[in-house]
């Protein structure tokens, strides 16, 4: 597809300065409204003329959506806080390092300076058939172009695919699931708080969206409880090139280990399915076991149970097995530095 270098098609730009106003505007505009956070996902859609909203609601002027605050139990991160601010925040670096690490591996410095935490978890799928405007299931059509014998699906799903085989591209999402974060959503009726893993949906629930937000709803903040502060964390992202790229797969875990035994654990992977997957079966299987390579190997095998490869992404199964193994059993090889 030719890259269009021109001014985007016209839209009405609304720039509310408070959450209440933003929610009201979204409510009024309904499906016509497009929510603009950092814009790093939005502008591609708008410039390519794939999505043509009549109204864009820009959240960048809402001060109460920005910043990181201490709460009685942990911290609260405004949805419009940039990824760079998340990476650099002293409390996140000290207590919730897995989130800082995951945010630092997103895209490029300039994108992290503008891209927001709320936007990173709410961004749309990167399947190029879908992004290029093909009328696929995710775009309200009735075919998946990636899941055909000749479809290019090296980046696509190995688990829980149903008609659509796109994956969730967020790096921070699995870290937030590992930290048992809570997502705060503003609706016309007030505020709703849900678990991180319940923010994301697969094609079985909604094939046209990767998250639960409905028109008129707004993700306002993400709360991280202190339950996992200072735990033993692991984050690893595998991608084709070291800047800009989305994950082929990533893994995030938080463990509390005492005397070599795993007491508590939360672990999630992304890039394997349309939603970041919390691996509950793995958590149950390794709890009470030694945090070593043998447990890691067992966990890796369990993690990929039921995985179904497409034509070009079978490599993701051993990759996911090994990432889970490393998250739990540790990395024995020499680490690689640039």
């Amino acid at each position, binding site marked *: 597809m030719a890259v269009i270098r021109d*001014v985007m*098609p016209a839209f009405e730009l609304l720039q509310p300065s408070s959450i209440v106003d933003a929610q009201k505007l979204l409510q009024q505009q309904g499906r016509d409204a497009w929510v603009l956070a950092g814009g790093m996902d939005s502008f591609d859609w708008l410039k390519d003329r794939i999505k043509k909203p009549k109204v864009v609601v820009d959240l960048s002027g809402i001060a109460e959506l920005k910043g990181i605050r201490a709460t009685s139990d942990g911290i609260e991160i405004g949805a419009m806080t940039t990824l760079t601010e998340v990476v650099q925040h002293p409390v996140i670096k000290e207590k919730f390092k897995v989130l800082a690490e995951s945010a630092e591996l997103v895209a490029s410095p300039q994108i992290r300076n503008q891209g927001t935490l709320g936007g990173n978890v709410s961004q749309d799928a990167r399947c190029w058939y879908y992004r290029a405007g093909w009328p696929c299931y995710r775009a309200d059509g009735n075919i998946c172009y990636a899941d055909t014998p000749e479809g290019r699906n090296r980046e696509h799903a190995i688990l829980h695919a149903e008609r659509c085989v796109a994956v969730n591209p967020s790096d921070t999402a699995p870290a937030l699931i590992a930290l048992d974060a809570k997502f705060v959503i503003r609706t016309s009726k007030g505020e709703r708080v849900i678990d991180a893993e319940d923010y994301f949906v697969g094609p079985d629930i909604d094939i046209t969206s990767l998250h639960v937000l409905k028109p008129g709803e707004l993700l306002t903040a993400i709360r991280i409880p202190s339950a996992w502060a200072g735990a033993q964390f692991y984050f690893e992202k595998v991608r084709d090139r070291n800047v800009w790229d989305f994950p082929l797969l990533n893994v995030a875990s938080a463990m509390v280990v005492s005397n070599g035994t795993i007491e508590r654990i939360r672990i999630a992977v992304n890039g394997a399915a349309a939603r970041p997957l919390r691996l509950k079966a793995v958590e149950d299987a390794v709890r009470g076991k030694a945090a070593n390579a043998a447990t890691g190997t067992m966990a890796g095998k369990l993690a990929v149970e039921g995985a179904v490869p497409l034509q070009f992404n079978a490599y993701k199964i051993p990759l996911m097995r090994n990432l889970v193994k490393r998250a739990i059993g540790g990395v024995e090889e020499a680490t690689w530095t640039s």
Partner: protein
Amino acid sequence: MGDSDDNDHKLNEAPPTTISRRDLIKGVIAGGVTVSSASYLFRATSLLGQSGQSTGERLLTINVNGQLRRADVMRQETLAWTLRHKLGLTGTKLGCDRAECGSCTVLINDIPHYACSVLTHMVRDRKVLTIEGLASPEGKLHPVQQGVIDEQGFQCAFCMPGFIMASVGFLKTNPNPTRGELAFGVSGNLCRCQDYDKILTALMRGAENMRRASNV
């Protein structure tokens, strides 16, 4: 889109009769007035085909390179477009227009951003710094610019303004980086000449120049 095609056609014919390249260059020297008014005409005609709802232009005052500049800005207009086509600041380059190359990097409140992926209406209360604003008012080059000249860091240099702005922004947070740290700092910029090693050497020299200048 028929309308806009017609307008594009007219556009191709009109400018040579009104502004010669020579006049245009004179205009730049005189202070950019000709350039901004010429691009104003360009934009106004090329967008007629899109004006289904509202042309959506509003007169904005934005702080660019320490000056308050006024421009009519469409709601959907990117900062890169405003800088290049309304304010005549063509030092900011447009490469991919998709936040994937870094050529359009400018500083907004001292932080590097891709100007292709910021709406001008989002920077009304903020300070924009482009490559044109780096040198001192007397014309003394910024230490990073001097480092680039000293080391002859670039080949074709299309990516240079973006690289320099990204490194100036990065050096504000880490004035004494290792080569690896600076490489990470400018990792959001691409060079098609694949001149990364020389670029890094030049930017490292620039960082050194900056430290020396601040110690004086």
